[in-house]
């Protein structure tokens, strides 16, 4: 009953977002676990798919007559992730920042020993937008799966409400 076109976009977005996050773990972990190494290529492909899927979702949500409701908060988040991922693609494809500087900078924040800010302006915009995203990150990413599991249990239990147990 859901809009299949939107569902495909949402699945690609969520899966690629997860892979991109996994790929970014290399900036936070030392030594880098083997699994994170294995996820570098899928994460790279997902990095290109991510902004494309967001553009696709945005077009469907704003331009399809079928969609009658678009929450401003949702559109804002969508645009924010789109900007972050687009800058990420630009840095990957064209304007590469110094990855050692980037890792030292992130590591410095994590260990309370501030390191020099990398010279790349794009990296700093990318980083600042991620900070904005964290503050606006919807909590449904945590509660949604719990509610989904409850809904599945409820659906199975529907036949026990009034039928013979």
């Amino acid at each position: 009953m859901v809009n299949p076109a939107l569902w495909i976009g949402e699945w690609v977005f969520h899966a690629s977002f997860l892979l991109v996050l996994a790929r970014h773990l290399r900036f936070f972990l030392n030594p880098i676990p083997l699994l994170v190494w294995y996820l570098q290529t899928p994460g790279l492909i997902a990095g290109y798919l991510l902004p494309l899927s967001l553009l696709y979702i945005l077009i469907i949500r704003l331009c399809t007559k079928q969609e009658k409701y678009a929450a401003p908060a949702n559109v804002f988040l969508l645009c924010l992730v789109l900007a972050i991922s687009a800058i990420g693609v630009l840095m990957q494809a064209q304007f590469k920042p110094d990855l050692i500087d980037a890792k030292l900078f992130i590591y410095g924040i994590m260990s309370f020993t501030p390191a020099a800010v990398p010279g790349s302006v794009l990296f700093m915009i990318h980083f600042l937008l991620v900070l904005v995203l964290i503050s606006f990150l919807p909590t449904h990413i945590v509660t949604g799966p719990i509610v989904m599991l409850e809904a599945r249990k409820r659906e199975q239990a529907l036949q026990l409400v009034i039928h013979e147990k």
Partner: protein
Amino acid sequence: MKNKRSFIEELLPSQILEIDACTLCGECLKHCPVQDVTGNPAVSPPEKIRMFREFIRATDGLKARIFGPSEADRKMLEDFVKAVYECTTCGACGQNCTVGIFTQRLWPALRKEMVKRGLGPIGVQANLPNAIRNSGNPYDKPAVDRYKPWFPETVKVAERAAVAYYAGCTGAYEAQPMVIGDVLVLNAIGEPFTMLSPEDEVCCGFPLFISGQHDELKDLITKLVNGYKAKGVTVLVCSCPCCVNIMARDWPLFYGGALPFKIRHITQYVLDAVKAGKLRLSKELHESVIYHDPCYLSRGVGVIEEPRAVLRSIPGIRVLEFERHGLNSQCCGSGGAARKVFHENAIAMGRRTIDEAVAKKADRLILSCPACYAKVNEAMKGHANQIQITDIMELVSGLI
């Protein structure tokens, strides 16, 4: 001060999670009957959730916990009250929710919160507790007229029996062909059945529950349960989906323990009788009928197959389906105690049901809910499309 009070006191922990889990994706709007007839996203499910989140944030959010609760926005509260009471609580939004929010139960809980704050219910819904206290029914009609005008003289009711029949207020006062059909079929099955006296068969509590007015519920439910218990009842049969829903889901909570009897929708009881050979439908009916699933029967308690099986047991009949049926059935406009306040919406929804039944070339529209029966019949007055509307037991009783 009132609006600074916590907004989550009336909610279950699972409902607080549900409010948080809504992604505001808007998928539910395609399934919302109120959206279909009003086209107004301001009264849509995600908008209600968005507004309620703002209230929770004001009184229970991180800032509120550190610096103290702030006043919930008055205008937004007014908008919310209108939106939550305009809803028919059909639950189609929840059925099609991408995260699976159980909205059929969430909206009444949010209404209860509004009642607690003195903001709900609206319109004639506010008279329900008084009417039920005065006369035992939400229509404020005399108890003496509950059975008398329609109860067939040929049907005998036992003083005590294992099976009891609850007619329900809407059936008894507003959809009498339905309850006449019920008792005729029960009589034909041949098992003795009992009923409470018209004074003792009070409202099941559903109108109060659904409008968020819970104060009288415990007394009403305890009175009814003890009444059936005293008659030695082990199975309580009822044809009204709303009554059946509250009996099965909420009576144990208000009664304070498991009920001493089972609840059965009449189609379940009749199907068992047909299967056991206690009821034979001897007359043929060469018609195409279309069955409308009441929201509180299908999505509410999962009774979907039984009414169809009863219909299919009629020789010669052809059973058609609405595009949206079963768990995805479309509200006919009668639900959620909204039909008396938002009459125009209810009529428009009822007419959509009629139009689809006519478009499907059905000879008859079969209903199994007294509220649907009363409202869809009302919607047909003056409407271009006309169809014969029959309650399922009204139909069966005529074919025995």
